[in-house]
């Protein structure tokens, strides 16, 4: 079918501000849902399908997030689903809602994700579980999430000559861009020297190179294009969602694995996993990276943002530092990246984050991103990756 027949409308978006509020994730999720419904001009009773992005951190209600939010909003009989894809959960939840709308099974769907996080490193689920690779990597290696970020960052330095100052400049850029974002957790503009003076966590990465863990909630209201026509003229649309997995052999070490696949017998795919994530989204939307006006990428670390520039096709491998240092990816540049401030300003609220990326693109494409607006933005992409092999990318168009 033509691409336009596969589009759904984003009728409303909403977020609960990111922070370390220490309250229930249910509160953040319902607050974001109500904001998205208000933005859409719809009532909760108009929602026919609820798609929840799960959190594994908050007990059983976190594993059945869709029903948890539906109950908190007041049982309405709406159909429900809950899904978990680690950091990619939000995109998966959006994809489930989108598929249901495109199949003609509902007109209006609500997608919600929210998290309450503990202080410090993300840790595996508790107990003695030697069959779980996420448990084992902590037990046998002491390999935290920043361990993997450190490996990628060091390899960038070794292969392409990236410097710690390049990494610091990513943080400087994002901290400026997020300073005016009311939903961000951090609003302070940070200098290169402040980044370089912060303690090393996983060399070469420092505390201010690595994203924090945050509380937060995000929601979107999606509808069929037919339903949207009477509600919101020229709505922002979702043109593609990619939830691809890697192809064998995957030769890049990924959380929480101990090893990659072997490429001794079978040649690696032409397109490595991270490159394949947005490639699938571009193909589905019928666009290419040259069509983009902005991108929201998953800057778990400053160095990883530079990797993403290359993975999503903004430049060739090894050219990301030049793109950054020329100002191309800053507000006012050729292709602003993380106008929201990114994870650098938000910290990570896992099941909400991929939804928050879509909220930001929606505000940008409507021209409502006060203080961080990318002028005239018409096409944007999000990209994110979840533990255990979850690709996540959403193309949003005006």
């Amino acid at each position: 079918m033509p691409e336009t027949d596969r589009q759904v409308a984003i009728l409303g978006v909403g977020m609960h501000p990111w922070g370390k509020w220490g309250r229930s994730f249910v509160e953040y999720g319902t607050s974001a849902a109500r904001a998205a419904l208000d933005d859409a001009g719809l009532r909760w009773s108009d929602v026919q399908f609820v798609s929840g992005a799960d959190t594994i951190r908050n007990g059983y209600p976190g594993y059945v997030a869709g029903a948890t939010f539906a109950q908190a909003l007041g049982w309405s009989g709406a159909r429900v689903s809950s899904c978990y894809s680690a950091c990619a959960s939000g995109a998966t939840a959006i994809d489930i809602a989108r598929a249901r709308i495109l199949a003609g099974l509902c007109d209006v769907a609500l997608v919600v994700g929210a998290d309450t996080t503990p202080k410090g490193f993300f840790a595996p689920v508790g107990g003695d579980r030697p069959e779980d690779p996420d448990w084992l990597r902590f037990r046998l290696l002491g390999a935290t999430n920043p361990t993997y970020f450190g490996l990628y960052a060091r390899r960038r330095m070794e292969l392409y000559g990236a410097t710690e100052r390049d990494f610091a400049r990513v943080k400087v850029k994002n901290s400026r861009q997020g300073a005016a974002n009311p939903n961000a957790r951090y609003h302070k503009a940070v200098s290169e020297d402040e980044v370089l003076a912060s303690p090393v966590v996983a060399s070469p990465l420092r505390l201010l190179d690595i994203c924090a863990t945050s509380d937060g909630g995000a929601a979107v209201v999606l509808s069929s294009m037919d339903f949207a026509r009477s509600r919101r003229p020229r709505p922002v649309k979702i043109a593609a969602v990619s939830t691809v997995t890697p192809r064998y052999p995957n030769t890049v070490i990924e959380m929480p694995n101990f090893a990659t696949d072997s490429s001794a017998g079978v040649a690696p795919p032409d397109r490595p996993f991270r490159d394949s994530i947005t490639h699938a989204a571009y193909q589905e939307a019928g666009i290419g990276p040259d069509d983009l006006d902005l991108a929201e990428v998953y800057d778990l670390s400053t160095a990883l943002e530079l990797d993403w520039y290359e993975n999503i096709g903004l430049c060739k491998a090894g050219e990301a530092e030049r793109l950054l240092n020329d100002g191309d990816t800053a507000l006012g540049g050729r292709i602003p990246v993380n106008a929201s401030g990114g994870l650098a300003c938000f910290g990570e609220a896992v099941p909400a984050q991929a939804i928050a990326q879509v909220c930001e693109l929606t505000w940008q494409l409507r021209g409502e991103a006060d203080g961080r607006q990318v002028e005239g933005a018409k096409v944007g992409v999000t990209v994110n990756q979840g533990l255990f092999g979850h690709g996540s990318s959403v193309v949003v168009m005006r």
Partner: protein
Amino acid sequence: MASGKARVPVIEGWFTTDEDRPQLLGSRCRSCGARFFPKTGACRNPECGRGEIEEVALSRTGRVWSFTDNRYQPPPPYVASDPFEPYAIAAVELADERMVVLGQLVPGTDVAALGVGAEMELALGTLYEDDEREYLVWKWRPTGA
């Protein structure tokens, strides 16, 4: 060894405990020859997926893909020394398998002298100890160090 404590692997069946020439134990598919670490119950080559799986000892040597360290104490289930000692971690591409495997670096490794492509070999090292035992794990060290 000087402690006189028994030295036991922290996990069974992942590596041999030959003190001088330890090897990681993985899986090999008898049909397509694909190798995996840690062991797998079935071949994960999507073009095969049917072969019988047998245990195989993997290359003892490889080259650095990347490296980092951990300056802060990780959460459990890591058993940290008290006081906490930072440690380095390397990702090493095995010579024959062309598979990148993570491992802590042997304590005292000069990380500043490492680089992508540096030759490494597998060693045994103590992950943690209690009153009776030292728990061993595989580690990486620069070849010849």
